[in-house]
């Protein structure tokens, strides 16, 4: 690891810590309905929304109504997005004349974006029209994020209220999150990104003449675009002279801003934020990487403010930092060490003032090791899933870090809203474990944690766990599943384990060698993303409803304080033990076995 790497990591997390405070307090005002500074501009828009949609702003919902609203709203989103992809060929803003997306891929993509996962089995620049990208995919980038934050706020109200039947109004929470938080941030971000070279245009792709023409052997294609095979089943090759290059365009910056801010992660282009048009400079990279964790970190502050004890939020944030920062360094260390195979071939992998060195396969020269590994850790800690380097080509231990961060349950920052409600579930489990030790009914934030809450909390943890393992087991034991594997040996197993962790954890990043655009992966992936999202949201809202009904218990002598370093360590222990115990066997078969192959 280099000095610059350490400096960049420290500055990155430092900037995050500094910005989380003011943004968190701002968001608390937004969700409490207090004046927040933008009311003059956005107030009329908000009221127009309520009037047009027939929403009664001051109507309160109980947890079942709230959950129903989330589900129906999401279902409507799935239908619209599916439909849009299927008919994009007949709609405007399609200068490349892309046809309909196949039904399987449309199903997978619709669920992927509505569940805030943004797993991509498609390649943006060769499959999606501008209209599908902006009015379909980008809209769900906003709305799935807003829905996640709304569910979190409902849970916070569960802690805050007492002897109450209701936990807020989903429409109001969703609208205020979108209008007052996501839109203004995305607006500023988009323009900063364009200033760095991210494209934002409705024009057709441009064709330019290359400086030096190239001659290649490429597979011959038939009229349907499929490779022609000879008698042995090998593709027939033909000579091709390439003299031109197609420069893809599109309304990318507006979409990339929200895909980073809303922990969505679905790229405008196939290679996501590794694409020079999606992330052109070190500055754009810093901004995009900061956006990954910005709202999830700030929501901890929002939480503290809303429950009336800022230290509670800081304790959760501290636990997140303390788990993520060491893992970020582990990833950088593994990647900076380079690939031993290449070292013996006369390749220079040492970092110097003139080169980043390290394992540069699947990484961009402008990002080197530090920017790539900070991103990899951040994007999997948060359930963002965008990438600026190819995780599939990471060293075994380097690639294990992002996988493990997903398997911790997407609670180390996690998705906007979903990460913190997941973390609160772990906090509930922690006070329960502590309560067992001293034989006392556990409490959290003045609410007794009883059988119902524990059942729901256990469900949340177990469902995601089970989905990942069952999915992986089915995939590696069926032909349809193993057919998609790209790399041989334990690395191939890692590809599958990573994919199912990503589906169920709603992350969306991949060991991208895995060919996921098959009936098998499209279908099972879509189903897992659905359950990974909604089978978590429903129990969380159930807990919210149950907590809201309870009386506030004043803290007594026997109450475990939940803002102390002791609690932070205890919480980290529970997260790491649950995550590590659950996934160590899987990791042993994948990255750990692969690492041992070097010795």
């Amino acid at each position, binding site marked *: 690891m280099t000095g610059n790497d350490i400096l960049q990591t420290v500055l990155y997390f430092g900037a995050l810590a500094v910005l989380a405070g003011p943004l968190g307090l701002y968001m608390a005002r937004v969700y409490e309905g207090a004046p927040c500074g933008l009311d003059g501009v956005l107030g009329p828009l908000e009221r127009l929304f309520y009037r047009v949609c027939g929403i009664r702003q001051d109507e309160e919902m109980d947890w079942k109504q709230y959950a129903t609203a989330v589900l129906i*709203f999401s279902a409507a989103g799935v239908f619209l997005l599916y439909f849009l992809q299927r008919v994009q060929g007949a709609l405007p803003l399609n200068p490349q004349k892309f046809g309909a997306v196949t039904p399987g891929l449309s199903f997978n993509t619709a669920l992927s974006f509505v569940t805030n996962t943004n797993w991509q089995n498609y390649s943006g*620049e060769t499959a999606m029209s501008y209209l599908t990208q902006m009015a379909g995919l980008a809209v769900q980038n906003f709305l799935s994020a807003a829905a996640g934050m709304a569910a979190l706020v409902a849970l916070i109200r569960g802690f805050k209220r007492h002897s109450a039947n209701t936990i807020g109004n989903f429409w109001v929470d969703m609208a205020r999150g979108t209008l007052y938080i996501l839109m203004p941030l995305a607006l500023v971000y988009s323009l900063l990104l364009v200033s760095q070279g991210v494209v934002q245009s409705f024009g057709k792709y441009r064709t330019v003449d*290359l400086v*030096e023409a*190239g001659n290649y052997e490429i597979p011959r294609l038939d009229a349907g675009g499929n490779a022609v095979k000879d008698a042995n089943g090998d593709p027939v090759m033909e000579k091709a002279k390439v003299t031109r290059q197609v*420069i893809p365009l599109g309304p990318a910056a507006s979409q990339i801003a929200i895909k980073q801010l809303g922990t969505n992660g679905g790229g405008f282009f*196939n290679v996501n934020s590794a694409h020079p048009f999606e992330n052109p400079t070190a500055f754009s990279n810093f901004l995009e990487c900061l956006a990954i964790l910005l709202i999830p970190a700030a929501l901890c502050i929002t939480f503290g403010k809303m429950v009336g004890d800022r230290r509670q939020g800081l304790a959760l944030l501290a636990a997140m930092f303390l788990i993520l920062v060491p893992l970020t360094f582990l990833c950088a260390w593994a990647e900076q060490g380079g690939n031993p195979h290449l070292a013996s071939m006369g390749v220079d992998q040492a970092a110097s003032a003139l*080169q980043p060195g390290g394992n540069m396969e699947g990484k961009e*020269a402008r990002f080197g090791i530090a920017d790539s590994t900070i991103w990899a850790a951040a994007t999997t800690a948060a359930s963002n899933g965008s990438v*600026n380097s190819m995780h599939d080509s990471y060293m075994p231990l380097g690639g294990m870090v992002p996988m493990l961060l997903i398997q911790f349950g997407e609670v180390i920052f996690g998705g906007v809203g979903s990460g913190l409600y997941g973390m609160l579930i772990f906090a509930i489990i922690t006070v329960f474990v502590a309560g067992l030790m001293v034989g006392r009914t556990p409490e959290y934030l003045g609410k007794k944690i009883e059988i119902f809450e524990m059942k729901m909390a256990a469900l949340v943890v177990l469902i995601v766990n089970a989905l990942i393992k069952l999915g992986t087991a089915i995939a590696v034991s069926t032909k349809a599943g193993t057919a998609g594997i790209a790399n041989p040996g334990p690395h191939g197993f890692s590809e599958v384990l990573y994919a199912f962790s990503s589906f169920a954890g709603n992350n969306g990043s991949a060991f991208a060698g895995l060919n996921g655009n098959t009936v098998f992966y499209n279908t099972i992936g879509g189903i897992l993303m659905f359950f990974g999202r909604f089978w978590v949201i429903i129990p969380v809202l159930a807990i919210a409803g149950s907590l809201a009904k309870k009386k506030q218990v004043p803290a007594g002598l026997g109450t475990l304080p939940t803002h102390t370093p002791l609690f932070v360590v205890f919480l980290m222990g529970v997260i790491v033990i649950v995550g590590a115990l659950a996934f160590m066997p899987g990791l042993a078969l994948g990255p750990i076995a692969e690492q041992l192959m070097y010795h």
Partner: protein
Amino acid sequence: MPRMIRNSVMSLLFMTALTGIVYPLVITGIAQVAFPGRANGSIVEENGKPVGSALIGQQFGGPGYFWGRPSATTPYPYNSASSSGSNLGPNNPDLIRAVQSRIDALRAADPGNRRPIPVDLVTSSASGLDPDISPAAAIYQAGRVARARGLDVAKVRDLIAENTRERFLGIFGEPAVNVLRLNLALDNLK
């Protein structure tokens, strides 16, 4: 329940219009006025003719040009209509073979140069469209390019220095050399 469905559908349509139509149109409008070059792909022109994008790499294979990062796009390298990494794992024999063939090609083009090869010159980039190489990778090729063009090596190294972009604020990212710009600068020497 019917009211809930109506609320859902109307909210979705309202938000689609706002975040899916109005928002990208506003951004596009501002971007096209404030940053027309960058919003439209940072196109590089030579004598009024577009020759590429400053942000998208091109394949160079002649000894008189600097070579960029290996590209894993299909069916040919630097196919900017279809960005892609290799996704080869670190232990994959295909990766080792690919790296070896790139080493062989570099050595064959510059037989006298026995220095270790900078890693970014033999490993494929994440996007397959990486416009940059490290300064080390450029300096490694300076002798070959100078010989092929009959130039003084010092002159070529000066050009590399002129086309090297330092870290942002001296801290973020990596120093990098834009291959297209460097090669165009070489062509313009004549």
